[in-house]
Each structure stands twice: as C-alpha cells, then as structure tokens.
C-alpha cells in the first residue's frame, strides 16, 4: 500500500513538474501569474483528442503535434494580448486580469466546440499495471514520468549551456539591464512564452492519457503547478522538481489518514504556509527590488 502511494505520488509529481516548470518560466520573464496557462493545458489535451480521435492520427504523432500547438496558443496570447498591454505600460495586476479574461474566453470556446462532458483518448480496454518498486504502474504512467524527466534535463541543459538559455536567464534576472546589454527582451519573452505553453500543453496531454479531459481540467493542474513552483522557488528549475515531489508526496501520503477529496485543501495549506513562512520557496533567493 505504502509503495503504491509513493508510485502514485511520483506519477502526479511528473505532471506537476511539467506544468510548474512552464508556470515558473512564464512568471520569471513576465512577472505575473499567467492564468490562461490553464486553458493552454486543456488545449494540449483537446488537440490530441482532435488529431487522434477525429483525424485518426496515431496517438504518439498526435501528441507530438499537439504540444507545439499549445505553444502556438501561448505565442498568440503574448502577441495579441500581453505585449500590446505592456506597451501601454500595464502593470502586473492588469496583465493578471487580462490572463484571467483570456482563460475564461478560451475555456468557453472549448466548451462550445467539445461540450462540457468529459472526453477520453485512453484505450477502452483495461490494462494491467507492470510491477514497479513493489507497486503497479501502467505503461502510460511510465511514459509520463520518462517524458517529464527528459523535458527537465533538456530544459536545464538549454538554460545553462545555450546562448538562448543565458539570454532568458538574463531577462529573468533583470529585464532592463538585459535590454541595455543589447538583448531583444520582447523576443526572449516571446520564445519563453512558446516553451512555457508547450510545457503546459504537454502537462495536459500527459494528464489526459491517465484521466478523462474536460474544458476546465487545466485549472486544477494549474493550481497544483503554481503551488509546486512557489514551494520550489519561482524561476529555479531544480527547485520546481523539489516542489513538485513535495506537493505530490504530501497529497498522496495524506490519503493514509484522510480522504482523497482533501488533496486540493492540502495543496493550498502548503501554499499558504510557504507564502507566510518561506515565500522564496526551497531554492529561491530573497531578492531586492532595483530600479534604474
């Protein structure tokens, strides 16, 4: 029983990790919580549904196309909503409200297109789990964990080793200084938005491989991602890993003593505790505000 709970936590952590990494990246360059990320998560899942169930493409090909499609939604949001607002000197609060608006619009468009009833891309036959660390795990769940780990390694390597990664870290550290150093800050925000949205869409795809999808599925995943990102330390990818594992363990091990319906309450209790006692998270740094 205990080992099964640990494995379940690992599976949940892999999805939290992918979503939280996207949230953390987007927040670090734009300095506001991008609520419409929740709609991008659902977009990823519904894109796979359209490509696999309606068009008839293989599931793997559908997923490979759906992830960049989610990234394209993030690009469109940045170009059509956030960038014009930033040019009008909109602050984080205005951008946050705009992102909530964008979420509501996108979620309603998905409700109109697909209905509010749940949809599924999972195989109809029940598959027996494989033995794993003394517990049972399905192939799809193993793939989820492998995809999350692979994405994390690619992201960490790209951010430390590549020119683009260093530019993104510079913008995260001090956008104004990055600008006067010759970096095209708008360009960096654009491609980070694409990568962050692709991660969100991937989180939605992984989730939809395990459970059914609904147009509102992204909000629960987003909130878990936000908690994992805050607990780990916003902008610190290794911290996001810790945050995702910590949150998933807390939620799943608590089912020893309380019902699973309290998992969201546990997530928010953790969020509140961190905001009050350790707002910089496990690996974040206390920063001082500076202005030119």
């Amino acid at each position, binding site marked *: 029983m205990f080992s099964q709970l640990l494995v379940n936590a690992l599976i949940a952590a892999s999805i939290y990790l992918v979503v939280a990494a996207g949230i953390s990246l987007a927040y670090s360059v734009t300095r506001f919580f991008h609520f419409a990320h929740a709609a991008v998560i659902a977009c990823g899942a519904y894109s796979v549904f359209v490509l696999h169930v309606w068009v008839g493409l293989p599931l793997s090909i559908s997923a490979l196309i759906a992830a960049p499609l989610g990234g394209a939604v993030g690009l469109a949001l940045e170009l059509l909503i956030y960038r014009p607002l930033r040019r009008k000197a909109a602050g984080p609060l205005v951008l946050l409200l705009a992102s909530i608006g964008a979420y509501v619009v996108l979620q309603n468009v998905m409700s109109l297109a697909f209905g509010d009833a749940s949809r599924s891309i999972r195989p109809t036959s029940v598959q027996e789990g494989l033995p794993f660390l003394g517990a049972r795990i399905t192939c799809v769940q193993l793939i989820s964990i492998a995809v999350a780990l692979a994405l994390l390694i690619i992201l960490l390597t790209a951010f430390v080793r590549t020119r683009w990664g*260093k530019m993104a*870290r*510079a913008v995260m550290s001090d956008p*104004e*200084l990055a*600008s*006067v*150093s010759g970096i095209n800050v708008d360009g960096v925000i654009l491609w980070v938005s694409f990568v962050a949205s692709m991660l969100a869409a991937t989180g939605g795809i992984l989730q939809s491989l395990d459970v059914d999808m609904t147009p509102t599925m992204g909000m629960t995943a987003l909130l878990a991602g936000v908690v994992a990102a805050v607990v780990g330390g916003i902008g610190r990818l290794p911290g996001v890993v810790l945050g995702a594992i910590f949150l998933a363990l807390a939620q799943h091990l608590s089912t020893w003593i309380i019902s699973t319906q309290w998992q969201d309450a546990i997530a928010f209790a953790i969020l509140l505790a961190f905001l009050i006692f350790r707002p910089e998270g496990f690996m974040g740094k206390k920063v001082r505000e*500076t202005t*030119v």
Partner: protein
Amino acid sequence: MMLEIRKLDTGYGKKQVLFGLSMEVRNGEIVAIIGPNGAGKSTVLKAVCGLIPAWNGRMCFDGTTTNGSTPAQNVARGITFAPQGNRVFAGLNVMENLQIGGFQVPRKELRGRIAQVLDVFPVLKDRAKQDAGNLSGGEQQMLALARALIARPKLLMLDEPSLGLSPNLVRSVFGKIVEINRDTGVSILIVEQKVREVLRVCNRVYSLKLGKLAYDGTPEELRDDKGKLKELFL
C-alpha cells in the same frame, strides 16, 4: 562629434522631465552631468540608450539620428550603458555576465575580448565562476564596467558608478574610468553625485536643474568658483 543632443524633451508617461536639453560629447572625451536629485540626469542617459523615447528634439550618435531606436540597436551602433546601483545579473556567474555583454560580438571574437577585459579588471579573473550576486559592491561595479566594455563601445554611459562604494573604492573606480578612456579612446558620459571626484577626471561638465541646462563649461571653472558650484546644487 560622438553624441549630439538638440532641444530634447522627454519624460515618463505624461510627466515631462527634460525641457529642450542640448548637449554634446566629442570623440574621446569624458563628460560629466551633475546636478541635484530630480534634475533629470539619469533620464538623459535613458533617452540616449533608447530606454525611453524622445518626445521632441534630436539625438545624433556618430552621425546617425537615433530617435526611436531600441536599446539593442543602440548597443549595435556602439552605445553601452551601466545603470545606477552596481547592476549585474545576480543569478548568473561573472563569466556569464561578461558573455551577455558580448551577445552582439561574433562568437570567435568573444573569448579574446573577455580575456582583454579581464586583464583590465584582474579581480574578476578569480571570481569567474562565482555568482555575480555574491560579489562585493566594488566587485559588482567593476563587473558592470567590464560588461559594458565587452562590446567595445564608442560611447560608454555610466550612471553614478560610485553609488554605495567606500571612498577608497570610489577612487579605484574613477581610476579605472580614466584608464579605460586613455587606453581605448572611448568617449564617456558620466552622471555622478560625487562632484569633487568626477570634476577631477572629466574634460567638460554639464549641470542640470529641473530638467534644464544650468551650466555648461570646464571642470576647472567650477573647481575655482565654489559659489557657482553651490548655486548649481541649491
């Protein structure tokens, strides 16, 4: 002429800060801008580097009008800016900070340029892998100067490079500024509150008051006229 500003009006949002400002920086000069708080000194540098737009007037750099240019375009032209407050990329190490200063430099050249800049600032050599946020104030200022030099600018703009530094470090930073100007011939436009120190190193000085030019002359004239200097800061 390296930089020519004519009748510049600009500000933030709807608030006008500079009113018809005209000034110039010639090739190889160190020019200081002094004045009381809120005079608009830093605003001049932000307008020249493209962080804020010119509302009216003209800015001309090395024969090219730069009104409407982005900071990235101005860096490519040869204008670099070290903002106020020892600003470095705190989460990146010293070497990465220098690499960012040279993002517009061809990759083959970058390593050589970093080596040259590290020769000017040997203290940074030993700290190459250290996070810039963990450097001392003086080391951060040296890094800010080094980062701005990697692109081999024609015009280097410094906003209060002495801010928050001890008197010894202030002397050391101003020594470096003179050395850089002498060895590379780069023109330097420097905003500074520590008037006595900056008057020792600059060739010409402008003083601003409430966004308007209040004085344009040589440092010697100001050093000899204590009454005038006091008047400029009242």
